[in-house]
Structure formats: C-alpha cells, structure tokens
C-alpha cells in the first residue's frame, strides 16, 4: 500500500483543500495509485524507452511548407498582441471584460 501525504501533495500542487474535499479525495488516491502499479512489471521488459516513430509516407519539402504558411497567414491574423514578452489578454474583473483590439 502506497503512503500518500495528501497535505504535502496539495501544498506542492498549490491547492487549498477544504476538509470535505480532502475527505472525499484522500480515500480514492491509494486505490488509483495501486491501479497504476499494475503496469509496474512492464518496466522490466526490454523495449524502447521513448515513443517509437512510425514510418512517414513523405515529408514535406521546405518550400512547400513555407507556401502553406504564407497561405495560412491570412487566416491567422487574430493572434493577441505582445507586450513585454507576454500575450495581452482581456482584463477580467467581476464578470466584466475589456477585449483587446488588434491594431
């Protein structure tokens, strides 16, 4: 049986758990972790550690990709503006919002 310290995990996950939520969540955790352990024996099997690549029919030529990107540019002009290295997002306060208008 795995010993799970729910308070420590909640702290790590930056989650405040009320008593009721803790009582509902805590009992299910060991059962779920135990379920995960059903695949433990597969860890010993020889096999690839990383996902394998499936053979691809044909990779695109670089020029072909660039042509497609240019074509998509006109569809994708709605990206939010940048400001100080961040996306600008609508300011939300008490249910109201001010959408950013792209210049």
């Amino acid at each position: 049986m795995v010993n799970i310290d729910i308070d420590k995990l909640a702290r790590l996950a930056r989650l405040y758990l009320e008593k009721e939520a803790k009582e509902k969540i805590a009992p299910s955790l060991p059962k779920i972790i135990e379920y995960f352990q059903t695949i433990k024996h597969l860890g010993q099997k020889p096999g690839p550690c990383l996902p394998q690549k499936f053979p691809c029919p044909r990779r695109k030529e670089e020029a072909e990709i660039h042509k497609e990107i240019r074509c998509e540019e006109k569809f994708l002009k709605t990206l939010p503006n940048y400001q100080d290295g961040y996306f600008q997002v609508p300011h939300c306060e008490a249910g109201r919002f001010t959408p950013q208008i792209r210049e």
Partner: protein
Amino acid sequence: MKEITELSISELQEAVKKGELTYSDIFEFTAKRIIEEEKEVRGYISLFLEEAREQAKKADKERNNTLPLAGIPLAIKDNIAVKDKPLTCGSKILSNFISPYDATVVKRLKSAGCLVLGKTNLDEFAMGSSNETSYFGPVRNPIDKERVPGGSSGGSAAVVKYGGAIAALGSDTGGSIRQPAAFCGVCGLKPTYGRVSRFGLVAFASSLDTIGPIARTVEDCALILQIIAGYDERDATSVPLPTERYLPLTGKIRDLTIGVAKEFFTSALSPKIKTVIEEAITELGKVSKGVKVISLPHLPYSAACYHLIAMAEASSNLARYDGVRYGYRTQVHTEEFKKIAQYEDPLQVFYEKTRGEGFGRETKRRIIIGTFGLSKGYYEEYYGLGVKVRGLIKGDFLSAFQEVDVILGPTTPTVAFKLGEKKDPLAMYLSDIFTSIANLAGLPAISVPCKRKVDNLPVGLQIIGKPCAEKEILEVAFAYERL
C-alpha cells in the same frame, strides 16, 4: 423531402442551391431544436443565436458562394478558443475568461463559411468520461435523459444528436470524441496526433490532445476534417505532411485487410456489445479483403498508462491557473484570508485559495495524483514507467500494421450508463479502456454507430488506422454506414 437532421452537409448545400431550403431555414431549425431540448440536455454553455441568425441571412444573400460550410451551423467545444467569446473549459476558474483570438481550427472553419452557434458543455478541463464534472452542470443524453452522454465532449455529441447543430468540434485526449459519439449514436473522429493544429485548444495532456469533428454522418466528418487538417507553424507538434483528399468517399475497401485485436473481447466488454461488434466485423469482412485476428498484448494496460501520463501532464499544464493575470481570483479582503495570511506567505495562500476554490473535485484529484507521479523519488517509478509502456503499445501497433490495414473493435465496454451511477473514480477511468490506446500511439480512430442497438441504446464501432491514414478509416466507416 427528408428532414434537415437526415441530410448531410453536402446534401444541405445542394438543397439550398436548388432553392428547396435557405440557410435561414437551417438555422431556424437548429435554433428551434435548441429551445426545445436545452432545458434538459444542457449541451451548450454559451449560445450566440442572434449573431448566427444575422450570418445566416447574410449567407442567403450571397447564395452563389461556393464555400463548403457556407451557412452551416456548427458548435464548438468550450475548450477551443473562439475570438471574443467565453472560453470556460467547464470550470469556475475560467468562468469569466473571454478568448482574445480564434483557434486555428475555428479560423479555418470560419473561413469555410460556417456559423458558430455556441460553445458546448464538457467535463471540467476535458477530464471525465460522463460529462458530470462541469461547473455548469451535467449534460444529459438526448436519447435517454436519465443517462450520461459520455465525455468529455458530451455536449458536442448531445447537440449534434438532437439537431442543435449540424456538426461540432470536440477534443480527444483519451477517447473524449469517440466515447460520447458512441453513447449518443453519432460519428466522432480523432485524427492522428499533429494532423490537426492544437493552437487555441486549452491544454489538458499536451502529448495526447487532439481536435476532431463530431457529426451525424461519416461524410460530414470527412468534410470538416478536410477543412481543419493541415500543417500549422503555431503548433510545434503539427505534422509537416501534405493533407490527403478525404472526399469524395467511395466505400470501396476491397484492397484493405481488417484486423481484429483479440484483447478487445475480454470480460470487460459487455456480452451484448460483443455480439453487435462481431456482427459488424462479419459484415465488413464480406466487402473487404478479409478479416485477420491480431494481438495488441499491451492493450489491457493502456488505461493505467494513459491516466498516469495524462494526470502528470495535466498537473503541469493546469499550474498556470493562479488567478494573477486572468480567470477566477479568490477574495483577498476577507477576514479568513487575512487570518491565514498572518501565519503563512500571503502569495502562497492566494494561489492555494484561488486554485482550491476555482477547480472542481475531479480536477483536484487528478492534479494531486499527477503531482505525486512527477514528484522527486516517484518520477521514474510512475511517469517514466508510463512513457516506457507507451513505447511498448506503439510497438504493438507497428507489428500489427505489418499484417493489416485497419483495426476494428468496440468503442466502449458498455452502453451509456445512468447519471450518478459510477461513483468510484477508478470505475469511471476504465470507461476509456478501449479508446485511450489510439491516443497513446498517436493514431487516427473513428467511432461509427452500429446497425443494431443494445437495450435501445447506441453502440459504437471503433476503427483505428495507421498514422495519417484518416482516408482509410473514413472509407471503412463509410462502407459500414452504407451496408
């Protein structure tokens, strides 16, 4: 003339061109169905009917335009960004968030002329298989309102079923398009990972997430996929391969060998569903090159592997919701907050309270388990193990596809269950047992309704294909639909 709900998108366009229908007629029909059904089904979180009505009128004025989705009312799952519209993910923490831009898929659909009717309900952050964990209330299955529509794209599947949209977009991380499609008796397609851009999709488990169509017919799924598929430089995992022509579908599958994985037919599968699926396989066997029994030895471990990886990635992806820049924020001027903040770091308390109040119970459970799987001392034992098993599952498919072209099986182990029936979270996680394997291997898969029902409820036939072989699975699905 047939009912609007019996017509495919191309048939609707044909009827409009002939003057038998107008786009406003199609819109008014869907709006009427929404008004009739939404009180009970609750498939939508937000609706933009007035805007869509105006767009339908505009489309009628420009009836000669040749856009494939001109005037067609579609619904979008509420974890996909639509500019200037709410993007809640079925969560309190994003309940006041308005998207500042369109997702690539939405941009493409809009450029094809569609009307966006509304945003559909889902399990909170797409975490669930029953659509019971949404902050906005559960969705009910339009076929039997005591039952769940499946999840997490249950809202999308439900509205398509009752005629509240001609088609919808969903997202599939472990079966979230195919499972609700099976429960509601519609078609749902999960494309190859990277085939459709994820730009604008709120991340749940980034290495598994995909966007795909839910529609009444296989042809409609193919049409929507044709529009949304393709390389996108804004998604680093987008596949740099040319998009195939999915239409027209012929249903000719004489040169395709059908594989049937014996691991699908275990005790977990309801005996009645087993019979229905076996009948479907026999029927398809007659029109294809033949049926071959294959083995996917790691299929029984796929659900455990999927949940391990998905929860770890979710705990990392959901760390961004802290109430600082956007979304729900806890009240900091309360006596309770001030009292706790006296003894602890106020910023940590602010984060914890915001997230504790903003997330629902199931999301919290998954974040906690994911945090456990990624924590020091357990990382290799859990997340590392999940990645290794994922490699083994891919290996199974690599071997299987040496012998066959597509793999058939059931979409779900049971038919739609009753609301509140599955109280044990582990039992709920096992609903994804047959679908998550395609996500782990990044393969395309489609669920189509079987000819025969079980206890008057629909059953889904799942068809899994090789990477980027969406055309093949669509052809098999189309052949079955026409049988």
